[in-house]
């Protein structure tokens, strides 16, 4: 098996909420242009892990984290948090387009909120290409100047994906992005992921085993704040090396 290119590497990430330690020495290497699923039972630290990557975790009062995050080899603690978040996009559990912005403005929200002015032509072009990438262009072409929240739930979530990738990040974090969606919208988004990997690397948090198996190339299995097993999805599902992974896959907890 050829060694994949690594987009992001974590070294001994520990994270706390107040006195409760959530993550223990998590070291992982996330392959470039692949979907890496983060799976594990509820409360195992999946979401906290991805939120430490773009330093959203540290914004919660009382929350802190230690360890090193290398993004394409650069230690993110030496970077401005704004740059970290520009290079690491995020899509949340619930679709959360900005209700005060139109569909068009929502796609450009990253630019608008960081005070970057775009020439009209460039802005139009970003909106169109980004919406095409998430398969939304034909659906919302005529609604570009309607409120982002006027779209359906699944469309809103794809709008949020567009908003994240419009910034051209290296990596996009998906935090259970389909848990609030119906099965049809879920499958639309799942199918979208492999298209997106041509340009972006993806970390996809899910508590669904089937979903992890369907969408991911690599999988990281978390339990009680530890990274228990990491490997190619096929390999982990067929022959887990850790007893805990095996038990989880066979439905003993979860």
């Amino acid at each position, binding site marked *: 098996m050829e060694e994949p290119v690594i987009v992001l590497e974590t070294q001994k990430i520990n994270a706390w909420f107040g006195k409760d330690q959530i993550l223990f020495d998590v070291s992982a290497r996330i392959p470039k242009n692949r979907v890496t699923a983060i799976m594990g039972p509820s409360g195992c630290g999946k979401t906290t892990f991805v939120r430490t990557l773009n330093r959203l975790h540290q914004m919660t009062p009382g929350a802190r984290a230690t360890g090193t995050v290398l993004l394409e080899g650069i230690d993110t603690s030496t970077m401005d948090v704004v740059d970290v978040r520009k290079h690491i996009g995020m899509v949340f559990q619930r679709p959360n387009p900005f*209700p005060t912005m139109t569909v068009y403005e929502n796609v450009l929200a990253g630019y608008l909120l960081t005070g970057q002015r775009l020439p009209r032509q460039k802005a139009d072009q970003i909106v169109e290409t980004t919406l095409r990438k998430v398969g939304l262009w034909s659906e919302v072409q005529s609604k570009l100047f309607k409120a982002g929240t006027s779209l359906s739930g699944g469309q809103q979530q794809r709008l949020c994906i567009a*908003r*994240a990738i419009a910034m051209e990040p290296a990596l996009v974090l998906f935090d259970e992005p389909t848990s609030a969606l119906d099965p049809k919208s879920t499958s639309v988004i799942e199918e979208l992921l492999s298209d997106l990997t041509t340009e972006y690397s993806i970390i996809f948090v899910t508590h669904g085993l089937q979903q992890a198996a369907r969408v991911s190339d690599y999988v990281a299995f978390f339990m009680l704040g530890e990274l228990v097993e990491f490997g190619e999805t096929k390999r982990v599902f067929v022959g887990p090396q850790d007893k805990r992974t095996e038990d989880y896959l066979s439905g003993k907890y979860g």
Partner: protein
Amino acid sequence: MTPRKLKNSVMGFLVAASAVLLIAVLVVIVWHIFISGVKYLNWNFFTKAPAPMGESGGGVFNAIVGTFLITLVAAAIGTPFGMFAGIYVAEHRGRRFADVVRLCADALQGVPSIVIGIFGYTFLVVRFRSYSALSASIALAFMFVPTTTRVTEEVLNLVPSGLKEAAYALGARQSSVVWNVSIKTAAAGITSGLLTSMARIAGETAPLLFTAFGSRYVEWNMLRPMSALPLQIFIYAGSPYPALQQQAWSAAFVLVLLILLLQYSAKHLIARVLRVKA
């Protein structure tokens, strides 16, 4: 009838009766003021200053101007302070200083308006050796700020945290998130809070007694004594002349109408924006 059902119907009756009582009180007040006040309303009432003593006719144009000026200036002074304090408290939840600010806002809201009036008298009127509309506006601003602070905080807290996180995750800084996401999302609620606070101070009488003092002339200069509707009502209602007492009712009617209008627009604004978003 079982005891449980009996209890249910007794409670049901009490709840409904209280609701009806609330409506009844409002209807009685508004109706009485309407009946007593509306018959003396005429064009002169709205456009003329009070007639010289001993002459009939005249109006309360001076008080209408005064109420608008004093209230608007008070709101203009108080809005930035109230809003900024509200933003501070909402953005620093859980910090001790934010809790202190919130506590002080609540305490300030509880200070009786007569005390605010005496405060205005001691620190403004005595100091500058003149009653003035501006000192009234400043005194009212002290009542305007805490309500605005609390309303702003409450409305900002209603902004879903997911929206703020989404903005932060896109690389936005706190100032950008506050202005472009929180405030914009909560704009209608904040505006409606400002209108409600204005409605509240527009009807205040006690602080004006010591500060604006009142005037029989139409006054536009904020540095001079000025009349206002509540003041005019207070003075006319206590006067021995039936003509002035009648004008007090009319003025009361105008004031109540003004305040209800402000409150209605506050509610309407919220409703309209909520509909747009849904």
